[in-house]
């Protein structure tokens, strides 16, 4: 009978072999050899039928003891080897984080579409209807109905593209004509915004385009006041810039509103003056005002019954502000070097 302390006993040799296994594969081979029929326990079990009956029981116990010892040693070594493997894997090997990932072909929406969608979602959530209007527009909607008769100096500033010699059809110079179209279609009270393209017959440079995007807003209701306009504009800015922004109204003249305002917003990019606000801490953001009674009348709405406000947001400019685009000509260029940045 050999004892477990004998270093040369089959069990001791087997345990030593298990503890010394170099890797999981070697361990697996040893498991086959040492825990199988030809292993120390297996041999004892195989020899049991040849033993005298009184020794069989202790031989069986002995085989089990050996088997358990071997299994323990096996799983201990297995854990050790797994830990080593994990540790090795966790070192990361030769991973190079600066090696670029596989290129992914990417599509994307135009930055104007992105901003328009944000605004549409914002205004829809506040009960505004989103309207569309024609780019090729009648003089009536673009000027006359908006209290801008022929010979009105405000027409000069608009640099209009005319489409016929009688001046009946123009490329709309602002999104405001849709104010009248809205009044024709909807009964007050209503709220609407109108994003869209507008046109000015003027020379093009980094900050001037003959085609750009605007967004008109129009609210008509009972007792709608300048106070409501202020509230709506603050909400708009909160939606656009994600924080409360101080505003101020200055007198501004636009024939289709009375009183008319220029709305300035505290520069969202600085507190002491920067390039964007031309060091003034204020950004001239949008013209707005109370809808002129003549405009309400043009749209078939009684100005004694209803009042309203309107605003005109320079969408292209807002897009440029948001993305830091320095040249308006990029927007409609269709140049992939520009489009791929969004």
């Amino acid at each position, binding site marked *: 009978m050999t004892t477990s302390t004998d270093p040369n006993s089959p069990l001791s040799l087997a345990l030593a072999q298990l503890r010394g296994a170099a890797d999981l594969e070697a361990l697996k081979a040893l498991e086959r050899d040492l825990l199988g029929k030809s292993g120390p326990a297996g041999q004892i079990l195989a020899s049991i039928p040849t033993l005298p009956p009184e020794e069989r029981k202790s031989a069986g116990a002995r085989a089990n003891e050996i088997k358990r010892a071997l299994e323990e040693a096996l799983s201990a070594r297995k854990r050790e080897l797994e830990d080593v493997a994990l540790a090795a894997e966790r070192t990361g090997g030769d991973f190079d984080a600066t090696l670029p990932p596989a290129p992914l072909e990417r599509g994307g929406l135009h930055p104007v579409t992105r901003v328009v969608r944000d605004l549409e979602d914002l205004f829809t959530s506040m009960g505004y209807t989103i309207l569309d209007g024609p780019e090729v527009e009648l003089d009536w909607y673009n000027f006359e109905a908006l209290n801008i008769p022929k010979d009105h100096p405000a027409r000069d500033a608009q640099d209009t593209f005319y489409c016929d010699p009688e001046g009946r059809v123009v490329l709309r110079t602002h999104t405001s004509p849709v104010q009248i179209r809205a009044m024709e279609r909807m009964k007050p009270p209503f709220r609407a915004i109108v994003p869209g393209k507008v046109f000015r017959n003027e020379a093009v440079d980094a900050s001037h385009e003959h085609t750009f995007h605007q967004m008109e807003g129009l609210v008509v209701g009972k007792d*709608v006041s300048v106070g409501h306009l202020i509230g709506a504009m603050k909400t708009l800015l909160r939606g656009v810039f994600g924080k409360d922004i101080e505003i101020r109204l*200055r007198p501004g003249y636009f024939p289709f509103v009375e009183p008319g305002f220029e709305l300035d917003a505290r520069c969202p990019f600085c507190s002491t003056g920067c390039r964007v606000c031309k060091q003034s801490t204020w950004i001239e953001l949008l013209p707005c005002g109370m809808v002129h009674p003549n405009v309400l009348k043009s749209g078939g709405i009684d100005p004694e019954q209803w*009042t309203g406000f309107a605003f005109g947001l320079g969408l292209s400019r807002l897009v440029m502000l948001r993305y830091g685009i320095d040249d308006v000509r990029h927007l409609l260029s*269709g140049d992939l070097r520009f489009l791929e940045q969004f």
Partner: protein
Amino acid sequence: MKISTRWLGRHVDLTGISPKQIAEALTIHTAEVEGLEPFLPHLGKVVVGHVLSREKHPDADKLGVCQVDVGDGTTRQIVCGAANVAGGQRVAVALPGVELPGDFKIKVSKIRGVESQGMICSERELGLGDEHAGIWVLPESVAIGKPVALVLGLDDWVIEIDNKSLTHRPDLWGHRGVGIEVAALFGRELKRLDTSLPANASGPVFPVRIESASCSRYVALPIDGVSPRRSPDWLRALLFAVGQRPIDLLVDLSNFVMLDIGQPNHVFDRNALSKDGIVVRDARPGERMKTLDGVERALVPSDMLICSGDAPVALAGVMGGEGSKVAEGTRSLLLEVATFQPAVVRRTSQRLALRTDSSARFEKNLDPTLPMQAAGHFVRLLREIEPGATLPCPPTDVGPWRDPARTLQVRPERVRQLLGDDVPDDEVAGILTRLGFGVEKQGTVLAVRVPSARATKDVTIEQDLVEEVGRTRGYARIPERALVADIAPPKRDEGWNRRMLARALQDRLAGGARFRETISYSFVADDLLAKLGDENEPHVRVINSGVEGASRIRRSVMPSLLGLLEPNRRRRDTVALFEVGKGYVPECSSPKGEPAEVHELGIVLAAAATKDARFDATSLARLRASALDAVRAAGFAQVVERPLTAEDAPRWAHPVRGVTLHVGDARVGFVAELEPRLRRALGLVGDVDSDAAAALISLDALLNAERKPAAFRSLPKFPGVKVDVAVLVPATVRSGDLAAALEKSGKGLVEGVELFDLYAGGSVEAGKKSLAFHVRLLAADRTLTEEDVQKYLSRVERAVGELGGAVRKA
């Protein structure tokens, strides 16, 4: 427009109010201030010197060496080249350290060996005009050592107001008007201004005849005993400050009156005028005249002329004529102050691109009561400087003008309602009174007398007075209010549906199919239309375009996209772009003249051309997949393709290599390779040789089609079987016919057929092609057996045989 604060001080006491405060108040309450600058700030550093002596420079004949007392107890030696410098003069001295206009910093220097400790300045060197004949000799009375700005009244601030923000305020085109505003805003008294005409002799009046309908008032006032001498320094300084070049007393006063009370006027040398007097008439066709700036102008009948007898002497409201201008020998004047129709002046000045201070004011619709005030103002100012000036006769005052002053009813309740703020009645009345309106309470209403200066244009309805109250109080005082109304979800109307459709298509193409969205100009270039063969199609045309390439409006988004292919292909191997946009079709216009509007999705895909692209990797194949997918994703799961026919194909499309897209009965779009000639014309050849395809989908057609979202089918209860079938068929057999045969052979068991390989050439015999399909078989009620598969395959063999081909055995 430039406003001098010193000038403003003539109308309102500004003690204790800084220029910055004025500028800010005007910005917040009145009009947009664009700039605020000290007037020639270096004049605060240039001091009055007293030339004690001048000696000739030892080494240069033309230079003098002056000893100058600059009031600080020392005597400076200054070398000066001016011929007019002499001992005893008061002069303007720039000492070392002072910076003059043009980055000119004064330093101690040696001039031909003699030290010079400063510079005696000419007016030009100080930025005060062109005078450079010699140094500027100051009056005897000015105190030595004091800054020149201070002793000569040149310390001033210039406020620049954006002209555009004054379009509706003719009253603010002079310092008086701005003074009224400032007085009201700061609660100061307005200084009195006497503009009554002094007594005149009773000689015969100057004859004036108005023949034009566009002149409503003409005042002509002869003045004698004048000469065009240099204006006093105070007058020159004020003109300089607002950017006017002083010329001579008579012209300067004319300008001063305009810039002071906003009324343009003109001074003629009366001796140069005909004895027949002044005739105001419209120009005759072909008539010409030479304006003050020396330019010969061709006139049209809509121009109005001031004529001496029959000869034009001024272009009414715009500019005087060359021949009758005040000159050195002028001793008697005719002062013209008139009221012209704004539109006429505006048209003439626009047509001739001749914008003047005068035309800018007339365009604004001036107060017709102003001309006589202007005449009185001119004469009173003139008399202060030239006491010998006399009026030989009464003024001539003709024309059908009427005082526009009117009374408006204002309901304080309406003021409160529109502003959304509780403004007490008294405050409404008080503000209007301060602004120069007459206010009388009549029950709950205020009867407000609008003075003529505000009545020509700006204040015509109650709402205009609401603005006066609101802006003067300050809009910042109005509390923010939340809009209250019943909120209903947006109506699912045509506009909503179109927007949602556009969004779905955009999202799918940009997100799934990886196309880049672009937004193009609505203009389409003529050469692009020519390449497309669309140049004779009707287009909305701009008739007055000042922008190159901006003359025709597109009928479709397609040309815009096609034009982007070549420039982008020069920089990218693959160009994948789409646009959701509008086109205009003028031959389908509304009775009012609105051209029909079409809404489209255009997609283009161009990749570097290659001979061995897989069947599913060509631009057309990729674009078809993307277009189908986008339309399906937008809610039209039933969309199908049909082969393109030559008669259906649009001009941009290859007549054969393309498909049409159909939803139900409606054709909703095209997907095709580019027509070969067009592809070449677009420049997609040579090093940017491209495999290019395009798709055009009508949003309008889709909106009219029935929406069928993907329908759910129960998940299979039994496993299916995947079978691959490879066939060799004559090259003429269509893939779709094979797929149909494979499906039909299943007798209801085929769940899907998918082509995964196609080739010809190489080991495949000529005239044949090899196709391979994955076929999914599935039964709803049982697990399929090997026998089922074998039966299927034998039916397939038969069916393929009928098509002239054979199944290839693995």
